[in-house]
């Protein structure tokens, strides 16, 4: 195996490992920081999928925006919230709830089965793309092509997304407004 495969496996391991830790730790603050690590690893995985622009966007938006937002909300919320979270931390690890474990495990097995099945029975459009040579290569100029596609083919979703973002902003601002006490 070449070095790309190893790096890929490394990133994957980090991602999955952090996710597992995130799930099992009791301390919420630590969980959030592990989430941070997960997001970075996933961004690395995007690069291996030859989606570099998406990777960068992930880091910018997700890590820089979403995660920071979560951390702010978490850290800057009032003391009771913090105290509540620190209460009941008798164990370091959270006990697994077995019904959820079973459900998650069964989902996992189904998805893995489907993935493996996909590996053996390639869908038609993938085969035709492979034959016609329309597969991304590492030397492609992704950003230009992506920009063109957004402005031409995906213009409507682009606009709608911006409007939705504005709605979310207004909604969030309204929700967190301080009520005038009568």
């Amino acid at each position, binding site marked *: 195996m070449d070095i790309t495969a190893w790096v890929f496996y490394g990133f994957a391991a980090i991602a999955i490992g952090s996710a597992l830790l995130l799930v099992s730790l009791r301390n919420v603050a630590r969980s959030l920081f592990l989430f941070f690590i997960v997001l970075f690893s996933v961004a690395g995985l995007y690069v291996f999928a030859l989606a570099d622009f998406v990777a960068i966007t992930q880091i910018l938006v997700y890590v820089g925006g979403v995660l920071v937002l979560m951390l702010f909300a978490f850290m800057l919320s009032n003391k009771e919230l913090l105290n509540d979270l620190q209460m009941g931390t008798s164990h370091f690890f959270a006990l697994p709830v077995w*019904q*959820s474990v079973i*459900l998650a495990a*069964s*989902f996992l097995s*189904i998805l893995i*089965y*489907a993935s493996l*099945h996909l590996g053996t029975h390639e869908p038609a459009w993938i085969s035709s793309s492979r034959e016609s040579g329309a597969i991304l290569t590492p030397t492609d100029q992704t950003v230009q092509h992506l920009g063109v596609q957004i402005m031409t083919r995906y213009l409507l979703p682009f606009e709608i997304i911006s409007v939705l973002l504005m709605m979310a902003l207004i909604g969030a601002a309204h929700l967190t407004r301080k009520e005038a006490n009568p």
Partner: protein
Amino acid sequence: MPTTALTYPLLAALSAVLLPFAGFLLSAALGKRAGNGAVATSAILLSLLAACYAFAQIWNQPPIHIQWHWFTIGEQAFHVGVLLDNMAVMMLVLVSLIALPVHIYSAAYMKGDPGIHRYWTYLSLFCFAMLGLVVADNLLLMYICWELVGFASYLLIGFWFTKDAAVQANKKAFIVNRIGDIGFLIGMALTYSHLGTLDTTALIEAPEILPAPWLTVAGLAFFLGAMAKSAQFPLHVWLPDAMEGPTSVSSLIHAATMVAAGVFLLARIFPVFDATVLLVIATIGTVTAFAAAYFALTQYDIKKILAFSTISQLGFMMVGIGIGMYPVALFHLATHAFFKCLLFLCAGAIIHEMQHAKETHDLDMDPQDIRNMGGLRKHMPLTFTAILIASLALAGFPFTGGYLSKDALIVHTFEWAALQSGAAKLIPYVLVAVSMLTSFYILRLLAKVFFGSLSIRSVKKDIRIHEAPMRMLGPMLFLAGCSLFPLFSVNPLNDSYVWLMQGLTSPVSTLPPLRLLHLAIPVLTTGVTCIVAGVAWQWYVNGKYPLKGGGLFYRLSEHQGYLDALYDAAVVRPVVRLSQLLLWVDHYIIDGMVNGLSALGRSFAAVAAWLDQRLVDGFVRLIGKIAWGLGNVFRRLQNGRLQHYFATLFFIILVILLYHIVVLL
């Protein structure tokens, strides 16, 4: 042959029987308002007039027999009917003639008693039953009247039912009578099974239809019935105790009429008895006569003396039947009715006066005890006259009716004994001895009560005894007149002229006469009576009593031969113990079985209840619980828990995915 025409004599006889029954119903309906006795007395008066008319029409005429069909059971038909021959009409007149004075007497004797209306009712019932018995033409009807007479006697003996002695006495009377009634029933059954009918005429005409051993058994059975009713030894024990009833009752029922019913029955069905049975009857009659006279010697209660005297005279009557001379027996029955009834009425008058004296002066004495009396001749002269006549009749003194009947009986017994062999020859001599004892005890009674001085005066100086009231004296004197000879025969000394016996004589009953005895016996008995009178005077009036009381024979007599104690030990106690045993069986075994079965049923019920509760109800409840459980399960889905909703959602998605994978791929 039974007639169907209702002639006047027949109607008169029927009304004579039914008038007291109407009196009974009317008195019962009137209740307390019948207290003055007018209903009962007028009923018996009318009955007497009807009976006299019937007697006049039927005496020495062909008998009248009428029968009606009563009921049928399957193939067997039973009748009710009336047979009027000499015997029946004689008894009809006798009973009503005795009953009328007793009714008049009772009005005075029972005055002031709180239950007197009951008394008249029971008395009318008794008269009806007795009159019905004498005219009955078949054994069934006679048995019914027999039982009714016994029942009326039970009611009247226990008239003062608050007294324990009276209650015990009436129970004893009824039970002993029942023992005799078994005999009557056996006789009836034998008659019916062999003859197919219960008519007495059929029985009299053809008694030989019953084969030899059964004929004897039937005869003995009928005699058993008569033994109990007529108080023969050893079934006589009820009669002395029956003196607990009012004295007027004792005079009518237990002296003159009811106790004579047994004798009447035997006279009625006389042809049934064969030689063995007749010998048995004669023997028992003799034993009774002797034993009763013996017991009467030492009694102190005036009524008990008279009761034993009755038993003794009934024994005489039975001997008369046993020797085959039932007309003589019936004649003695008639004379005995008059003088015994009179004796009791006089005793009642004395007791009434003594009771009055006891209440006035507040004494503590028994008014019936002859030791408390004495010298009453000066205080109650008319009563003394009446009782003297009656006593002489009892003792068989000449110029009385009793002399005629008793001496006729004894003479005929000698004539009979001449034809017998063995121990039967002793019977007439025993009877002679009995008549001597009879004279003794009755003259003892007279001496102790009427002569000497009033012994209770020694306790209180100023006791006065009055003569009996007119309403009591009238009947007494009437009966005294009837006890004398003119009623029965024109010749006071010779019994061949007695018209009653001439009417009753049948070809069955004749014995070769021994002319000498017809003279000798009366002389013997009269002489003995005079000697005994002298002895009694010496002993009781002059007080020179030579013997010491309390010897063995004395005690045997006083305790009535210890028969009551014997019956108590041999019969009463075992029966009581048997009934206690049966009670135990019933209580523990039978009730135990029933209780056991019920416990079994209860346990089954408990099991069924358990099944019902647990299984049946449980099943229903199970269904309810399942429904509730299912509902609960689905309710749990809506528990407001966010992550739970999320999990449910993903679970369903999982199922869909599985479906797609498994089915479609």
